[in-house]
């Protein structure tokens, strides 16, 4: 959890990106499908009418093609919305049986073997158990991911193409089965196998953890409530960030001691629900000092919380304390505080304003600096059991597995097994390693700065040998080209979103360091990520499957 900022899920931005990307992709698919329909009908008419009357062929083709296209679209959406649970269920059970009889469950044996030998490499009884926990937890979660993903990858990439090749799907489609039911049934079937395997592995993994590290069963995980951060500079004026003390990656911003510089956290949703057993609000901090002079080495740098109600202008100081460097310092705050005018005030009623709590942090040691980032100060709600956090992390692995299944099965509706595996593999590799590169490519940050407009404009520049830095001369055609380029640029700008971000599903960073897997910045983004891919994949996969004759060739 060090230097990791769990950003809460942003609904608005999520939906906006999703809408733009899906919208443009569907638009592209619709145009392509329409063009293909018209083309094939025109060619047919051409063959029938004869080459003598090309105009008539074109007209007929356009008419019949549009009709066929519209029909297909209407039928398609009906098929997608009205599926029979009975038939979907039958197909998924079939796929489950198929997978089991293809010995997929052997991965469980591999898993077991992993753990038989893991003990040799991991156990070092002399290590501090607190240091062993992260290693063990990460090991278990990684083992589960690395075993389940290849298994479902193969099952979902090869299942449907094999079914078509063996023509067993032939007999199925002579029954009243919709293509959508075949697709969804197969996705669910592989998911059932995957779920079974993940469930067994996670329970076994958990029991193994408890046996290997008996202290785990007693562990509680922190449930942090993060706020937002802002800064005041040394004159007390609002600043975007604090001082950089020379880090390359400026994760923490520093405030100077004994000046008006402050870091201000605002927490919302503060209610008695967050109080601990003694009725106190617990603030936990992980603040780093930066010493410009030796100072008093025996004592740490001193810092202080001030609780503020900006509306009622109440300020209550909490007694200053030393920072515990490289460790977390936990301060339960009493409900009864004294404000700056020495009146007694109540934290939860007088300071907390509409569920919002403002905390100012100051450094009191002259010439020393305190570094802070958003997740460095948080309200610690009541702890959750370790098991809850662990199984939430497993749930995220499951979501990632589901996403891969959905993607791979949808791709396999149109291409054969090897190609489906290749495409899915590319997506996974890009999703794990390539997103940052794509990001910098399309946003034009860093080395990959992007000049010269969109596809058409660039093509024009290439043809006319025009330097990409030279602006286009204004005029009708320039406008046309740029307008046509807009959707492409828009798509390119969001194209990173076509590739799932597998980092979203990695929860080991929370569990291993004793944090609960948060809802807002952990589970929710993972769930939304999966849903965002589910819909377009199933829709496109369905139309691909529907347009096929399923004759193996």
């Amino acid at each position: 959890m060090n230097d990791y900022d769990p950003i809460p899920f942003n609904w608005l931005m999520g939906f906006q990106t999703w809408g733009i990307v899906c919208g443009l992709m569907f638009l592209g698919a619709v145009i392509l499908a329409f063009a293909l329909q018209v083309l094939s009908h025109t060619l047919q008419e051409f063959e029938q009418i004869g080459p003598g009357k090309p105009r008539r062929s074109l007209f007929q083709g356009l008419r019949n093609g549009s009709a066929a296209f519209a029909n297909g679209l209407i039928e398609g959406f009906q098929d997608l919305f009205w599926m029979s649970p009975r038939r979907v269920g039958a197909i998924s059970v079939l796929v489950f049986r198929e997978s089991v009889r293809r010995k997929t469950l052997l991965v469980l044996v591999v898993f077991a073997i992993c753990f038989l030998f893991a003990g040799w490499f991991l156990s070092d009884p002399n290590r501090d158990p607190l240091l062993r926990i992260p290693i063990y937890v990460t090991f278990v979660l990684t083992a589960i991911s690395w075993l389940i993903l290849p298994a479902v990858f193969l099952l979902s990439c090869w299942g449907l193409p094999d079914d078509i090749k063996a023509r067993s799907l032939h007999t199925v489609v002579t029954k009243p089965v919709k293509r959508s039911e075949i697709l969804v049934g197969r996705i669910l079937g592989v998911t059932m196998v995957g779920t079974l395997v993940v469930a067994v592995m996670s329970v076994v993994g958990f029991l193994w953890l408890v046996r290997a590290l008996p202290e785990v069963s007693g562990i509680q995980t922190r449930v942090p409530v993060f706020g937002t951060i802002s800064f005041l500079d040394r004159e007390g004026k609002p600043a975007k960030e604090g001082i950089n003390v020379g880090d390359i990656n400026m994760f923490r911003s520093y405030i100077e001691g004994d000046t008006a510089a402050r870091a201000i956290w605002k927490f919302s949703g503060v209610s008695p629900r967050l109080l601990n057993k003694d009725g106190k609000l617990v603030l936990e901090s992980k603040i780093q000092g930066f010493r410009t002079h030796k100072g008093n080495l025996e004592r740490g740098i001193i810092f202080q919380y001030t609780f503020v109600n900006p509306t009622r202008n109440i300020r209550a100081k909490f007694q200053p304390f030393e920072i515990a460097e490289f460790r977390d310092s936990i301060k339960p705050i009493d409900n009864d505080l004294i404000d700056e005018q020495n009146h007694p005030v109540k934290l939860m009623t007088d300071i907390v304003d509409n569920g919002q709590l403002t905390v100012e942090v100051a450094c009191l040691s002259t010439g020393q600096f305190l570094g802070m980032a958003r997740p460095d100060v948080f309200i610690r709600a009541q702890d959750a059991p370790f098991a809850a956090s662990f199984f939430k992390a497993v749930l995220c692995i499951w979501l990632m597995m589901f996403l891969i299944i959905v993607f791979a099965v949808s791709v396999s509706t149109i291409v054969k097994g090897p190609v489906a595996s290749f495409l899915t593999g590319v997506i996974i590799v890009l999703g794990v390693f390539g997103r940052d590169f794509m990001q910098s490519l399309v946003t034009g940050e860093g080395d990959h700065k992007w000049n010269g407009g969109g596809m058409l404009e660039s093509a024009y520049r290439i043809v006319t040998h025009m330097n990409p830095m030279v602006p286009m001369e204004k005029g009708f055609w320039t406008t046309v080209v740029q307008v046509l380029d807009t959707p492409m640029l828009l798509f390119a700008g969001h194209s990173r979103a076509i590739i799932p971000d597998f980092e979203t599903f990695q929860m080991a960073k929370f569990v291993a360091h004793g944090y609960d897997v948060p809802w807002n910045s952990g589970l929710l983004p993972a769930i939304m990520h999966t849903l965002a891919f589910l819909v377009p994949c199933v829709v496109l996969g369905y139309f691909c499957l529907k347009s096929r004759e399923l004759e193996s060739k």
Partner: protein
Amino acid sequence: MSTEPVIQIRNLSKVYRDFWGRKKVRALNSLSLDVRRGEVFGLLGPNGSGKTTTLKLLLGLLFPTEGEVSILGKPASDVSKNERIGYLPEESYLYRFLNAEETLDFYGRLFKMTPATRKQRTDELIEMVGLKGARRRQLKEYSKGMTRRIGLAQALINDPELILLDEPTSGLDPLGSRDMKDLILKLKAQGKTIVMCSHLLADVQDVCDRIAILYQGELKVLDRVDDLLRNQEMTQIRASKLPPDAIKEIEAIAARYGAKIHEIGQPQNTLEELFLKVIRDSAERPGQRFVNTSAS
């Protein structure tokens, strides 16, 4: 037998294309025919004449290049028509990892059917196709004939009113093919419509009411089997216990009309002769084709 058409095929053509859309074969050329409710219809033709292609087009497994199909009053692309259709593919394309019971249960689940009915029909069909001893064995262990039998059972799981059989007797032992023919007649007696393809002419002759003969994707002959096999050159007189005197008299009468009696008995014409004649004629005169006057 009513004349209401269960299947209407109009100008149906199918061109197989390769991945790039280049033409490979014209498997079916402007086929038009009707199949009426309650009849057993036979599709005959040499290998590669387009029989299987026709059935697949009827089922919507293939998309027609031209022409239209209406089956049970619905277009071929409408999957809901399959609710009342049973299809036995050329080879049984089934899931080899399932056993007989699981196979029938799986296909049964694809239809609107209560679990009790499904169970009952599964048992009945396994019994009927004679696989009782092998109901728990996986299909990959089955012999060809056994696979054929389970294939037939899956085609009948929904008690269909229209049954399409692609070479139903292929791979079956003589007993099995006798059973198959009896079954077809039994189904017909129940009022079902059956379309079958076959090369086994004796089978077709035994069970079919009407036949169509395809050659290179074109319809050559379409008529009732009885009519087709009636020998126009001959007159057959069937009588019970005709005394020798009467026969003499008949011979005299025939002689008076200038006719000669070849033999007293049944004409020795078989479907096989007809089939071979049609195929030979077609090979000699490629352009000629049967034009269906009752359809369209």
